[in-house]
């Protein structure tokens, strides 16, 4: 007990004095881990940074055995890229991305709803079917698709890409959104049905607001995949419907030095999605942690 009294007297001091070192210790570990995180983050980002840097170089500066960080920046490469007419490609990419994502949501939300909250018989088979359509290598079906699209006169038409991207993203979207729907408490639906709400109003007024972060995350992922898709785009478009990745590939030549200009084109092609991703990353994490699990 003597000890107790002793401590008691020093209590305030001890409290202050002892917490400091511990906090320091903990924060020291945190600082180290923070430093590691920074290093890794920079390492991951560096190639992209270099790409952007290169896009402001002359071709000769881009090709040096000792990488050049200091150089005379030039907008020449961007001028070159813009003079190649990036506009229509950008518009096409936007159309393909926005509309395909919209269609994915329009088709996918009810489907995910049907296979989760109001499960139909053979739910698993349906889900499996959706997922299995993603197993088909696009390269194997590109010729049939080309033939079909040609038959119906839809070659080099941006809506062809919209439809294909919708088909490409739909299975994943259904699959992801299903897990979000599963997070919605069943009683809410029951309550809504007791309150006299018809199905579609339940969906619109009750369920969708709840899972909106999840839907947003799904949409963002669809946007990323649609924007970056290359194979369909390069094979099914010509002068009218080319998208940004196709535009980018146009800068690859088998003759000559092209890396600086290619960097400029690549930067331009990737920029919209990078910005979208940066802006929306919080929502993405939030959305993914919302469901994705159950």
């Amino acid at each position: 007990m003597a000890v107790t009294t002793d401590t008691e007297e020093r209590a305030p001091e001890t409290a202050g004095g002892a917490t400091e070192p511990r906090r320091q210790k903990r924060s020291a570990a945190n600082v180290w881990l923070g430093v590691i995180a920074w290093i890794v983050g920079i390492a991951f980002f560096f190639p992209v940074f270099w790409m952007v840097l290169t896009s402001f170089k002359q071709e000769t500066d881009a090709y040096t055995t000792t990488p050049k960080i200091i150089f005379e920046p030039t907008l020449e490469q961007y001028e070159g890229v813009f003079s190649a007419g990036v506009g229509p490609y950008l518009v096409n990419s936007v159309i393909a991305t926005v509309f395909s994502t919209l269609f994915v949501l329009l088709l996918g939300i009810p489907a995910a709803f049907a296979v989760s909250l109001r499960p139909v018989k053979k739910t698993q088979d349906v889900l499996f079917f959706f997922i299995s359509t993603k197993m088909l290598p696009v390269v194997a079906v590109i010729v049939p698709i080309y033939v079909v699209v040609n038959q119906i006169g839809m070659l080099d038409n941006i809506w062809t890409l919209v439809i294909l991207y919708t088909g490409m993203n739909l299975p994943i979207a259904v699959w992801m959104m299903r897990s979000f729907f599963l997070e919605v408490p069943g009683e809410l639906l029951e309550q809504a049905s007791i309150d006299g709400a018809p199905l579609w109003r339940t969906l619109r007024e009750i369920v969708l607001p709840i899972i909106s972060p999840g839907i947003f995350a799904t949409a963002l992922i669809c946007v990323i995949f649609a924007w970056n898709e290359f194979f369909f785009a390069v094979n099914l478009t010509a002068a009218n419907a080319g998208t940004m990745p196709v535009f980018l590939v146009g800068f690859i030549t088998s003759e000559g030095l092209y890396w600086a200009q290619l960097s400029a084109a690549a930067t331009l092609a990737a920029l919209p999605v990078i910005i979208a991703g940066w802006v929306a990353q919080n929502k993405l994490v939030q959305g993914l942690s919302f469901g994705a699990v159950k």
Partner: protein
Amino acid sequence: GCSGAGALGSAEGVETVTVAIVSNPQMEDAISLAPEFERENPGIRLRFVSLSENEARAKITASVATGGGEFDVVMVSNYETPQWAQNGWLTNLEPYMAGTPGYDRADFIPTVRDSLSFQGAMYSVPFYGESSFLMYRKDLFEQAGIQMPAQPTWPQIAEFAARLDQGEGRQRGICLRGKPGWGEVMAPLDTVINTFGGRWYDPQWRAQLTSPEVRNAVQFYVDLVRQHGQPGASQSGFSECATQFGQGQVAMWYDATSAAGTVEDPTESTVAGRIGYAPAPVVATPSSGWLYTWSLGIPQTSPRKDAAWRFMSWMTSKQYIQRAGNDPGIGWTSVPPGSRQSTYQIPQYQQVANAYAPLILQGLQRANQEQPTVQPVPYQGVQFVRIPEFQDLGTRVSQQISAAIAGQITVDEALEQSQNYAETVGESYQR
């Protein structure tokens, strides 16, 4: 369909011509001059689809073969043209040429013209043509006290390469393509095989890839590039070698004659002005340069053949070369070479290109696509076998060669496997 008739800018009475083009520098120059054409021809609007060589070839072939009809003008090569003409996919251009005063069909370099003809009629017109030659650094040769012969042989080149090689991580002796692809490693290698006396098939379409001549040639090529060649050889193509040579990393480079424009351009190359040129090295044949040309044709499906021809004739005309040469953004070093003999008579061109221009012309004129090697062959083509299966066959073989260059397999293994592929293809011609 909606092909060609673009959503953008198809005003009343205006025809939109869609052009599929390979995105090489000269073609990009042409695109940059296209507005002038449109100004001169108010009824025609141009839409370019410019893709890198691989995509362009795959896409154009698929489109033309299935009658996709997206394009009114396609850029093809002397590999495709006769075949496609035979298939009836391309439009016979003779009537159009005849109907275009001043176009001067006879001005095209004869070998080039022949390579784009089927049954005597041209089905595509050359934009530029190329052969192959050897580039070397005059300054380094001088330093090392080596004298480049007027017609070098491959063993000599190998020896020079060894002498100029400074070892790993430093300047290497020679750059040779090693990247898989029938248009990549196979192009220079085929010329080596040819001049070593090898061939793909004998006249009975029996595959010859394991014959001693081919074996020696491939072994020589692989040894040379592995011992004294550039780093990353198995992934080097034209562009990579251009970079290496342009940055002074290698002393010699055997490749397409079109490289001259790149390596002599001071904005891209640090060695401009210090380069010497020699004809393609030989062994058993008198010459060994290849023959390749990018040319323009009109698919049969195009409903706008007249407009298409108007554009093509503009782009392949003498005037175009004058126009490009006088353009400050392009200049005489970058005019499309190897299509017209008259180009080589232009004083300005002679002035900037006298180091290599005569060699190119000579290479093109001597290229022999009918009889590329010592022994007779049942096919045409120097650096390719002009049969439809060759793209696939050549690529597969090139992958084996590339693997051998990377050191993953031996030359024998590579050729063994290649022989299998070649036999399968050959069999379908024996019947």
